[in-house]
């Protein structure tokens, strides 16, 4: 199958560029900006809407992420050999996915409404936040639209993305990209994939980085944390610069 330049740009160049920005950007941000790495919670300003919107959004998001993992990362042959029929897979994926999407979208609507109408929350919204909200909402809504429009309303088993999008996605990580698989993918899916890739490209530069701070190690540590003053400060109020400055490494603990 002949692959056009547009296809290569869309399904090879853009994905690799976005993922590279995502990885390198995140590492850079972590090294450069630990102090700016936070959830930037606005719970202090407003609680009533947040109480509803935030858990809806985040738990919905966790469900959707799990669904994407199953759909994209696990080859169809695996589920087939595990005895999961096409009908069963479609049923589960569509309805669990829709449930997740409903939670996610309603949470998103509540959160955006809150952000726009609560004075202090709106004032605390930066330009980066607004860009992030646009990108995030675009990804979510296009994905929801694709699910509803093609997977539910079109009847049958919908579009079998596990024959095209999923292998293409995995081919990126095997470093043997197969853009040809993406020929003929319905527009709704193509739009969703592209928007999501762009979202990953802006990810490291927005507050979305807080996703990587999920405190998974909290249950493993003792409750009370002791730190020695020497370890905490490393000596001096100024962080030693790279280069020729004499090392001010850890001192012997006293």
């Amino acid at each position, binding site marked *: 199958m002949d692959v056009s330049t547009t296809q290569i740009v869309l399904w090879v160049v853009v994905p690799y560029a976005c993922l590279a920005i995502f990885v390198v950007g995140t590492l850079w941000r972590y090294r450069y900006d630990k102090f700016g790495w936070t959830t930037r919670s606005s719970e202090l*300003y407003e*609680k009533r809407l947040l109480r509803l919107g*935030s858990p809806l959004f985040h738990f919905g998001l966790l469900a959707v992420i799990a669904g994407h993992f199953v759909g994209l990362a696990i080859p169809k042959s695996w589920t087939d050999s595990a005895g999961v029929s096409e009908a069963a897979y479609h049923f589960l994926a569509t309805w669990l996915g829709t449930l997740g999407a409903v939670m996610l979208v309603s949470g998103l609507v509540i959160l955006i409404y809150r952000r726009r109408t609560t004075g202090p929350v709106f004032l605390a919204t930066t330009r*980066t936040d607004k860009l992030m909200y646009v990108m995030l909402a675009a990804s979510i809504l296009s994905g929801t639209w694709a699910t509803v429009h093609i997977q539910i309303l079109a009847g049958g088993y919908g579009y079998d993305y596990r024959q095209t999008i999923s292998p293409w996605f995995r081919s990126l990580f095997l470093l043997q990209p197969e853009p040809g698989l993406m020929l003929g993918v319905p527009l709704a899916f193509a739009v969703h994939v592209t928007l999501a890739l762009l979202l990953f490209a802006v990810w490291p*530069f927005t507050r979305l980085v807080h996703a990587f701070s999920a405190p998974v190690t*909290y249950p493993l540590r003792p409750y*009370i*944390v002791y730190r020695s*003053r020497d370890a*905490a400060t490393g000596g001096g109020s100024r962080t030693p610069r790279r280069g020729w400055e004499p090392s001010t490494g850890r001192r012997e603990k006293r």
Partner: protein
Amino acid sequence: MRVMGQMTMVMNLDKCIGCHTCSVTCKQAWTNRTGTEYVWFNNVETRPGLGYPRTYQDQERWQGGWTLNRRGKLTLRAGGRWKKLASIFFNPKMPDIHDYYEPWTYEYDMLLSAPAQEHTPVARPKSLLSGENMKISWSANWDDNLGGSTATMQDDPVLQHMSSHVAEEFEQTFMFYLPRICEHCLNPACVASCPSGAMYKRAEDGIVLVDQDQCRGWRMCVTGCPYKKVYFNHKTGKAEKCTLCYPRIEVGMPTVCSETCVGRLRYLGLVLYDADRVGEAAATPDEQDLFAAQRSVLLDPHDPDVVAAARRDGIPDDWIDAAQRSPAWRLIHDYEVALPLHPEYRTLPMVWYIPPLSPVVDVVTSSGNDGEDGRTLFAAISRMRIPLEYLAGLFTAGDTRPVERVLRRLAAMRSYMRDVNLGREPVEATASAVGMTGDEVREMYRLLAIAKYDERYVIPTAHAEIADDLEEMACSLDFEGGPGMGGQGMQGAGPFGSSSGQPTPVAVENFHALASRQTADSPYGPTTPGRVNLLNWDGNGRPDGLFPPGDGTGDGTGGSANGAPRGAS
């Protein structure tokens, strides 16, 4: 036995006049930044009253501190690790800004820039959160001096826990002031609550701190702290708290609140404690035994075994010496007059209080009796149940006996020393009635009444034999990306807004904050370009805009962008 050091503060409430100097100087030093407008590392509450934030002591509502579960095991009241993770997307027990107060400023500029008109222009309050006009309805000290307390005092959680006859005798109002900072607890619930592990207790001096690089703003510490002394900086999205002025403590200086205290009522000193026994003491079954359990965790620095163990655990000799001279240890252990605030929260708080005798003395004197006579005072102390029960609700989980014992000691000292001062023969029986000798009473009197700076603050310096610590003093603009390195400093901070990038040294931040405050009135509303707000001017130099533009010399439009003071002394 594992010996650790703890920098401890004791406050003598009898001497607090409620002037708020500690709060103001602390705020000037640490929290005069955007995002921390509502943050008071140190605040002074009028008691009875609601406290700050309102009703923070009501742990049934706020779920702060520790509690014992059904199996008698120590557990966080707001829920353990898994519950915290489950509620990570919304913290259900966090006070919102209205439980503190909505910070505001005034439209001062209106007073000067308003056109000539019939009515006097007014400076309306503007919210610092929304920029809108607002009606001020609460603040950090709204019920100061019992102001308006008839409307709110019954909501005081300590009063609510007392018996019902309080309301009837409400007419005999008593009050005192309670200055509060972070308790730097031995068993800090905030540290235990932090999902990121960003909060820690320093092994050397026990100061509880937040690692600003590691904090991710989950806000569980705000819930965990029963004293509500961890605050959320809404600008940076990070938790901040009282640091016990550790940069000062490390070089042997007292905290800002202690240094500036008008009544000289604060004492700072090191105590040694057994870190292995903290958990056991915090899990004492009966709440009223917690005070004794907490005291038993502290170690006698004069005990040779303790000294040997301290040396073994790496505590330097000058620190052991400081612990032996510690005024905090003397007040807690030798004279037994210092009590912890709310031991029933099971955090083993390490800021101690000498309960006030003055409410009792005031009542005795106003009834025409001799308020300095030992026997009269003793009788009054045991008769005046309301102040006693209230103080017990604050300091001993409701057990009035320890509070009564302390007040009797204070009364005995007052009576004994009056005889001394009047040149009469002091009555030894007064001292022995409270289990002390006359000499002990004199020593205690000296420490409580006339102790000098060096006796009130016995602070061993941190062992940092490194010159780097002086760097910030040497060239504070020379940090990476700072003005001294060709960077932009505060104005052009990182690409993610003003709170991103490498943290700015405090000295630099203060320098720029001062410079900008001298030329700006408020973040909102119009400002007269280049004009200096005299209220914020520190008196040094001649900032641009201090005088109206002259003919030809001034540029008349804006002054310099930085407005930095020139020619400072």
